[in-house]
C-alpha cells in the first residue's frame, strides 16, 4: 500500500517536473494560430471587419472573439481557407459586410490640395506626396482598403475596380453546354 502511494507520488513528481521543464524549454513566443490566420488574410488593413487591421482580426479569431466571415476583400475563398485551417464549417459572408471586388484607389490629381491626410491614413505607404504638393497613389502597392477616402477633405479619391485583362484572366469553369465557338456569319 505504502509502496504504491510512494511510487505514484514519485511518478507524479517526475512527470510534473518534466512537463514544467518542457513548458520552459519549448516555449513559443506569440500565438502560432493567430500567425497562421494572419497569413490567410488579404492584408488590405481595411478595417471593414471592425478591427483595426488584419493582425488584430486574426487575434480576435484565434481568441474566439469574432467569426471567420467578416473579411470583405478576402471573400468566400478566405472563409473557406479559414474554416479549413480551424476545422470549422464554412459560414456564409456576414451580410452587413458583403463581398467586395478588388479595386485600387486613384487620386484625381487636379482636385488634390496637398493636405497629406490620405498619406497618414494609408496603412501600406502607397501614397506619395508632401504638404501643399499634389499626391498620387502607387498603384502596384495599393491594396484597395478605402481608408484614404474618408479623410480626404475635397473627395478627390475614387476607387477604380481592377479590370480583367490577359494578365489576370482565369479560364472559366468548364460546363457541359459548350460555348458557341463558330464565327458569326457577318465576320465571314
Amino acid at each position, binding site marked *: 500500500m505504502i509502496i504504491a502511494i510512494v511510487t505514484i507520488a514519485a511518478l507524479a513528481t517526475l512527470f510534473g517536473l518534466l512537463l514544467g521543464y518542457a513548458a520552459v524549454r519549448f516555449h513559443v513566443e506569440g500565438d502560432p494560430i493567430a500567425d497562421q490566420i494572419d497569413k490567410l488574410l*488579404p492584408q488590405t488593413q481595411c478595417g471593414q471587419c471592425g478591427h483595426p487591421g488584419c493582425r488584430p482580426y486574426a487575434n480576435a479569431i484565434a481568441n474566439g472573439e469574432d467569426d471567420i466571415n467578416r473579411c470583405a476583400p478576402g471573400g468566400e475563398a478566405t472563409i473557406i481557407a479559414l474554416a479549413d485551417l480551424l476545422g470549422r464549417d464554412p459560414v456564409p459572408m456576414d451580410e452587413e459586410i458583403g463581398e467586395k471586388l478588388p479595386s485600387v484607389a486613384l487620386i484625381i490629381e487636379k482636385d488634390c490640395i496637398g493636405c497629406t491626410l490620405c498619406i497618414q491614413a494609408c496603412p501600406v505607404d502607397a501614397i506619395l506626396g508632401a504638404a501643399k504638393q499634389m499626391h498620387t497613389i502607387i498603384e502596384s502597392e495599393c491594396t484597395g482598403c478605402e481608408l484614404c477616402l474618408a479623410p480626404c477633405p475635397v473627395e478627390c479619391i475614387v476607387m477604380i475596380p481592377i479590370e480583367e485583362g490577359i494578365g489576370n484572366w482565369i*479560364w472559366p469553369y468548364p460546363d457541359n453546354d459548350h460555348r458557341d465557338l463558330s464565327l458569326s456569319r457577318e465576320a465571314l
Partner: protein
Amino acid sequence: MSATAPLRPGHFHGGIHMPDHKAESTALPVAAVSIPSRLILPLQQHIGAPAKAVVSVGEHVLKGQLIAAASGRVSAPIHAPTSGVITAIEDHLVPHSSGLSARCIIIDTDGRDEWANLPPPIDDFSTTDNAVLIERIRESGIVGLGGATFPSSIKMEARNNSIDTLIINAAECEPYISCDDMLMREQADQIVSGIRIIQHILGVKRCLIGIEDNKPEAIRSMSAAVAVASLHNTEVVSVPTLYPSGGERQLTLLLTGKEVPSHGIPANIGIVCQNVGTVYAIADAVLKGRPLISRIVTLTGEGVAKPQNIHALIGTSAGELIAQAGGYTDKANQLICGGPMMGFSMPTDEVPVTKGVNCLLIASEQDCPPPEPATACIRCGKCAEACPAQLLPQQLYWHSRSRNFDKAQDYHLFDCIECGCCSHVCPSHIQLVHYYRFAKTQIWSKEKEKSKADHARQRHEARVARLERIAAERKARMRKKKAVLKSKKGGDDSAKKAAIAAAVKRAAARKSASRAETESNQGATQ
C-alpha cells in the same frame, strides 16, 4: 553521317495517331510578304513582362525601327514591320484564348517599306564575343516561334559550358500546321547558318534536328544543307509521326533517351531546344542585322479557298491573310489560332498575327466537329494510356473539377503540357484540358494574391514599426528638452542668486562708501 536520316528507336509514353492534313497547305510555295494598310502590334507577344512603347501617336517609323522596348530580363522588344505612321496606342483584340483585348501599337503603313538603320551584320560570328551575339538576339526581339514565345536570348546565356546537346525542334506534330515544313524546304541553308551560330554560342558537342517522318522533303532538304555545310556533329533525325512528338520533353526523350525532370527545363540535363523557325530568325538577326518582324503562317482548313503558307508581317490581321489566300469558302465555320489540338477559336478575323501564331485554321464543321455533350467519366483509363507526360488525367480531372487544387498539384498538374490527347481519346467527350487550364489559372491567381498579401503585410509592418520608432524618438527628444530646460532653470536660479548677492554686496559697498564719504565730509566741515 549527316546525309542519312536513321530512324531512332526513341519512345515516349502515350501519344495519338491522327490524320495529319499537311498536304493541303504544302502544295503551293510560301507566298511572299504583302503589306497590309494597317498593322496591329500587341505589346505582349512573348512570355514575361509586356514591352514598353517608345514611340508616340503621330510619329513616323521606319521598317525595323524599335517601337517598344523590353521591360526587364524576361521580355522582348518589338520593331516596326514596315514603314508608316503610328495612329494609335490602344486596346485591341489579341490572339489569346480569353478573347480579351490588350494594349497594341497600331501603324498605318505608307507602302514605301523603307528600312531604318539596322545594326551591322555580324558575318564572322565565330570570332565574335558570345555576349555581343546574345545581345544581338535579345535586341532583335526573338522569341520561341514554336508557340511558347519564350525570349530566346535567355536560353543562350552562359551555363558554365554545361550544355552538350542542341536540339532543333522541327517535328511539327500538330495536324494541319506546315509552316516549319515549308521553311525547311525553302530556307534550309539559312537554318543551317543559324544552327552554326547557336552551336558557337552554346559550345555544344552535338546537334540533333528532329523531324517527323511525314515530312520527307524537309528531311531531304535539311540533310543536304547539313552535308553542304559539312557540319559533322549535326544529325538530321527522322522521328515517327506520333502526336505530340514536337513537345519539348517528348522530343528530348525521343532523340536522346533522357527525360527532362519534373518542374525542370532541358538545360537541367545539358540540353537546349530551339524551334526551327527561331533558328532561322536568329540567323536573320546575326547575319543581316534584321529584327524579328515577320514569320511564316499556315493558312489551312476547308474554310479557306487556297490553303497555303504565307510569309506575313507581324501585326497583319487574320482577315487580310485569309483574303490573300483566296478568302473564305462556304464551309468556313470556325477560325482557330493554332492547330486543332492546342489552338483556340477566335471571335473575329480582326485579330492580328503575333510572333507566336504559327497557323490560322479556318475550319469547316468536318475539320473541327462541334464537341459532343460530355457524359460522366466511366473510369476507362484511356486518357492515362494516351498521356505523353505519364500523368493520371482522371485524377487531375476529379480534383480540378472539385476545385481541390492542392490535390491536383500532388498529381503533378503543372507537368501537363495541355496537348489534348486525353480529351481526344475520352469516350465520354469530357473536355479534360479545359479543367486543367481552369485549375492552373486559378492556382496562379491564388499565388499572385498571396504574394500580394505578403507584400502588403510587410509594408504595413514596416509602417507600424516606423511610426513607433518616430513616436519613441519624439518622446526621447521631449524628455531631453525637458531635462535641458530643467537644468537651465537650475543654472538661472544660482546665477540669479549670485547676481542678487553681488547686487546686495555692491549696494552694501556703496552704502558703506557713501557713509564713509559723509563721515569724512563731516570731518572736513568740522
